[in-house]
């Protein structure tokens, strides 16, 4: 084998490794890597009470109940719902119908005890008047499903 051939061989080997690396990563992505779970995932997995995890979804319309410092609301992914309790100050962006990520644990009664609630805002930016005009003309579409 001449040096030129050997170099070509090395380059091909390197390309092969890179190709295989890409293939592996793509397979992994297809295996769905998720970080926070939807209420459906949680129902399906029967998560234990000792594990901290994150739940993401939308705050269900009309579900927010405030009792002093304690807030109760329901997170939905439009198929399954999960009741959440949280004690603390909510972010200003926390609204019904908006995306939310809660971190905490499940309790024995099937309620999610959040120790932290983060609002997830969408990529829409517009003045109030415009959204109202859109709503009146019926072209306004509420956020559907979770992000």
């Amino acid at each position, binding site marked *: 084998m001449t040096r030129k051939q050997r170099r070509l061989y090395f380059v091909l080997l390197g390309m092969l490794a890179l190709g295989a690396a890409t293939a592996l990563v793509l*397979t992994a992505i297809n295996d769905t890597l998720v970080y926070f779970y939807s209420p459906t995932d949680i129902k399906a997995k029967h998560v234990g009470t000792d594990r901290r995890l994150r739940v993401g979804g939308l705050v269900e319309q009309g579900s927010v109940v405030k009792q002093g410092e304690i807030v109760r609301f329901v997170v939905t992914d439009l198929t399954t719902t999960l009741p959440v309790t949280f004690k603390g100050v909510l972010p200003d962006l926390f609204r019904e119908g908006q995306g939310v990520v809660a971190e905490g644990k499940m309790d024995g009664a099937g309620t999610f005890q959040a120790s932290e609630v983060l609002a997830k805002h969408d990529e829409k930016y517009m003045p109030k008047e415009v959204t109202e005009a859109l709503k009146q003309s019926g072209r306004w579409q509420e956020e559907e499903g979770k992000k």
Partner: protein
Amino acid sequence: MTRLSEIIRRDLRLALRQGSDSIMVVTFFVLTVVLFPFGLGPETNLLERTSAGILWVTALLASMLSLDRLFLADYEDGSLELLALTPTALELLVIGKVVAHWLTTGLPLIVAAPVLAVLLQMNGDGFATLVLTMLLGTPTLSLIGAIGAALVLGARRGGVLLSLLVLPLYVPVLIFGVGAIDAAVQDLPSKAQLLVLGGMLLAALPLAPWAAAAALRQALE
């Protein structure tokens, strides 16, 4: 290929006769991990939950500890010039040195990790995944580290600089290493994370020696 084995044998022999490096790395690993229960309190739940993270972060720091020696000794005594003048690809020699480095530092870490996992009360389901992630992850650390080690040759305060350069690049390995173990402990599939770790190793295998060899040539100019 004989040259590759020649340089691996020589570096292993050097490590064996000089001794200290492997033992120091493992000692650092063990000592630092043992510090965590003191810092976090002996609460079993907390230790169990954080064990994957603690082990991986500490292993990462430990493998970085010996990194600045990777090329420095050869650089200082003129061996590196002669290595660069060997009638073969410098990239191949870099691979040889990285292999030797991994055998003397990465492998002992992998052996020590399960023992420490027991001390940290890690769920038994995670042990196999822990070893597997470290088998896939620590060679990647050595490979990426080789780039950093080659870059800081001749720099002022090279050792500190090295950690600044290399640690940000270690983040992906850390994320997927810990992610895989956490998933395994929770009885979730960890295949995806392991695939990504393998992918990163495969990508680093050609790219890192190439970049490190380029850096070495710069250092010798």
